[in-house]
């Protein structure tokens, strides 16, 4: 991890930042700089666990408005100080990991709900609002935005947009990029822009500029406000669970009912290992005693409509050999869906673990799963490999292959091993037609794979970066930019 001390005059930058946002909103002490030294990415977590030297921000700054964000970016350009945007710090890819000496720009003071348009069903909110708070405010009014990521309690709107967040109900409600209708962004040089706000599927005014910044991970500017589509709270929410003798049958059932037009909100399929109660590390809070692949379905909407959808899905699942477990295991799954993200259930350093999430079409999905499983278990003896699938369309879905390897005594060896696991896993996925990542983002963790993923097309991203951020101050190194 390169630790480079920028050559700016620290006192001058500090003084200008304090003048811009108020001294009470600039933190240059070691306590805060250390707390912001790690998001949830394994690598800085390990460094923090062992108290190893790691990049620290030079300043933590909390602006209250887009104008203040703009001024902070102008200061950064004047003094050539890197800027790392931060909202919830809940990312697992190191997207918010500080560059040594950077201005860490935390947007959480900008957390207002600006407007709820209850006629058109849209909400406009600032980037610092916590996902759960946004949902609660909508629920009070009888709406939902249908977004339930594992980081629901900690992620903020800005970060979710910047990392292309997905929630467990994405099959019906979409990922965050499907929800966003327009953005306010402060460009790296300080200009404030707003992309047009219009309903989904209506734009023909050139490339969708909002989508340029969605997934840009803070490399192209700071997202300060967003307009999202929202929904009426469903009249009914139903759950259903199935047990398949193997993963293949489960995948076939899912493909068939999705391609018939059935549209559940939750479609979550666990492989035989992750589904088993005997497996120590699993994201499935319940767990099953008999071997098999576990499928959870949930349906949201008007009673009559979802009854029909459920009926078709059930018929197909039964035809593919699924055992109908009824609604209870599904409801239990919903109520306990975040349990495995709390300590001590959640895997934590020094355990060597990760989720090499990839997406693929149905033609490749099963092939990718087995290729990654083979590559990881054969190359890393003793590694536990589990997997589950989610976030579907009728053409394919998303695979979460997880690995767990017992800690090593030497953290440097652990880091080397960790990197090797990712190299092997990602390479096996890409060779079999997978897309590198679906919604955890790239950050610094996967930056080295971006050239492989994009090929010659990567130069388009680089050119956009050069044009918008001439001094390359914005979140250096993330996304491979």
């Amino acid at each position, binding site marked *: 991890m390169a630790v480079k001390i920028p050559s700016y005059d620290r006192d001058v930058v500090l003084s200008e930042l304090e003048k811009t946002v108020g001294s009470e909103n600039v933190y240059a002490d070691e306590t805060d700089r250390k707390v912001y030294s790690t998001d949830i990415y394994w690598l800085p977590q390990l460094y923090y666990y062992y108290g190893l030297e790691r990049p620290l921000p030079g300043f933590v700054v909390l602006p209250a408005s887009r104008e203040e964000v703009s001024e902070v970016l102008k200061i950064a350009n004047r003094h050539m100080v890197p800027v790392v945007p931060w909202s919830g710090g809940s990312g697992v890819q190191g997207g918010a990991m500080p560059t040594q000496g950077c201005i860490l720009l935390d947007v959480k003071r900008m957390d207002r709900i600006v407007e709820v348009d209850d006629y058109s069903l849209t909400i406009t909110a600032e980037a610092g609002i916590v996902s759960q708070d946004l949902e609660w405010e909508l629920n*009070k009014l009888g709406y939902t935005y249908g977004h339930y990521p594992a*980081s629901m309690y900690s992620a903020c709107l800005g970060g979710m947009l910047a990392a292309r967040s997905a929630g467990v109900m994405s099959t019906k409600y979409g990922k965050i990029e499907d929800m966003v209708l327009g953005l306010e962004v402060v460009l790296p040089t300080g200009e404030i822009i707003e992309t047009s706000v219009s309903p989904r599927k209506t734009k023909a005014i050139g490339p969708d500029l909002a989508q340029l910044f969605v997934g840009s991970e803070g490399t192209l500017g700071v997202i300060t406000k967003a307009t999202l589509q929202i929904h009426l709270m469903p009249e009914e929410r139903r759950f259903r669970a199935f047990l398949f003798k193997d993963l293949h049958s489960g995948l076939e059932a899912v493909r068939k009912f999705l391609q018939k037009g059935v549209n559940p909100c939750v479609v979550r399929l666990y492989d035989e290992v992750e589904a088993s109660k005997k497996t120590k590390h699993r994201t499935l809070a319940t767990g099953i005693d008999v071997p098999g692949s576990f499928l959870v379905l949930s349906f949201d909407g008007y009673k009559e409509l979802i009854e029909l959808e459920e009926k078709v899905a059930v018929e197909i699942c039964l035809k593919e050999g699924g055992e109908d477990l009824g609604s209870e295991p599904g409801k239990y799954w919903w109520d306990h869906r975040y349990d495995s993200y*709390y300590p001590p259930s959640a895997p934590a350093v020094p355990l060597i673990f990760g989720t090499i999430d990839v997406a693929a079409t149905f033609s490749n999905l099963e092939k990718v799963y087995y290729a990654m499983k083979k590559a990881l278990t054969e190359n890393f003896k003793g590694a536990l490999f589990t997997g589950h699938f989610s976030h579907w369309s009728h053409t394919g879905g998303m695979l979460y292959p997880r690995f767990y390897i017992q800690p090593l005594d030497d953290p440097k060896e652990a880091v080397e091993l960790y990197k090797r696991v990712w190299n092997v896993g990602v390479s096996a996925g890409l060779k079999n037609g997978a897309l590198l990542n679906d919604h955890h983002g790239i950050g610094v963790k996967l930056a080295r794979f971006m050239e492989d993923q994009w090929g010659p097309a990567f130069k388009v991203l680089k050119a956009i970066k050069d044009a918008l951020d001439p001094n390359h101050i914005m979140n250096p190194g993330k996304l491979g930019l």
Partner: protein
Amino acid sequence: MHLKEREREIWACAFCNSMCRHVCTVAMSAKLESTQPKGKGMIEYSILKGESEFSESAVERMYMCVDCGRCRVWCITGISDCSRNVQAGRADVVELGKAPKPILKWGDNALMYKSLYEVPVEERFRKVKGLLELEGGADTLYFVGCTTAQHQPEIAEAALKILKSIGDKVAVAKGEVCCGYPLWVAGFTETAKQLAEENVETLKSLNLKRLVTSCPECYLALKEHYREWGVPLDLEVFHIAEYLDKREFKLKSSKKLSMSVVYHDPCHLGRRAGVYDEPRRLLAAIPGLKLGEIHWNRENSLCCGGGGGLQVTYPELSKTICNKALAAAREAGAEALVTACPFCKQMFLERARDFNLKVYDISELLA
């Protein structure tokens, strides 16, 4: 308790995925990562590991906690309680002599006056009108508490009136001193224990049947923490709402109160002691009174901002927190906010006018 005795609990917070950030009273207003339970856990972990020490800013973060227990409601680890970790950190800070000045003042007051406040022992009850002194044959002791005695004497007056009205032989103990709870939370663990010993000694000699108090912090200390501190009190302890509910207290129908109210669950009575229904039953039984609910109620009730010493260490932050609770009460559309805690009442009273709300302690409506 010190940090080194809570390694596992601190680890759990430090390496958590911020699963309670969204409900942390302080973080919801301060926004800074180091003010949420994970951030505090990270600071404590670094100190335990020897990577950091209690710098001025680390000490500041330890005192940015209202002891509200909201984080605990959302924590399913079964391991951690951020405010207890913070309390352990504060105990270390106090030993190092690094506590913030207003907190040191609390410590000095406790030593000199046996109160949170700068009031000589003999003047402890000076502001409470018509206070009953200890008489022979009393069966119920009313434990007044520092904040009620100094800042909300009308709560004690109302409570004593009610207790008398239900036929209890009620008295107060001349030798009452601070219950110790706010000092314990602030990190003065030894001082808190000494105060507890003094109270237990005084109460032991009085041959009482029960103890009743209007202060949830006193209630919690006397009922639970004295045992934990190794100074058990062999006496039934009630919060007044709990006691009156048990006695099936009802206002006479001639005392009609035509107003709409919402009940604010005090952190230490609700979340920490589980007393939610008793005050609601008492209020619902008042003739003419319309009882509504705040959206954030019961275990998710918002804090008044007055706990954990925040009102003396960070008054502006405390005020912001209080305003959020008042705004939530106002949103419920009631004329008045009723609570059952002298700290809450004091906090709310100072700002309620901005929200067009009246503020009462439950005893004031029942007296």
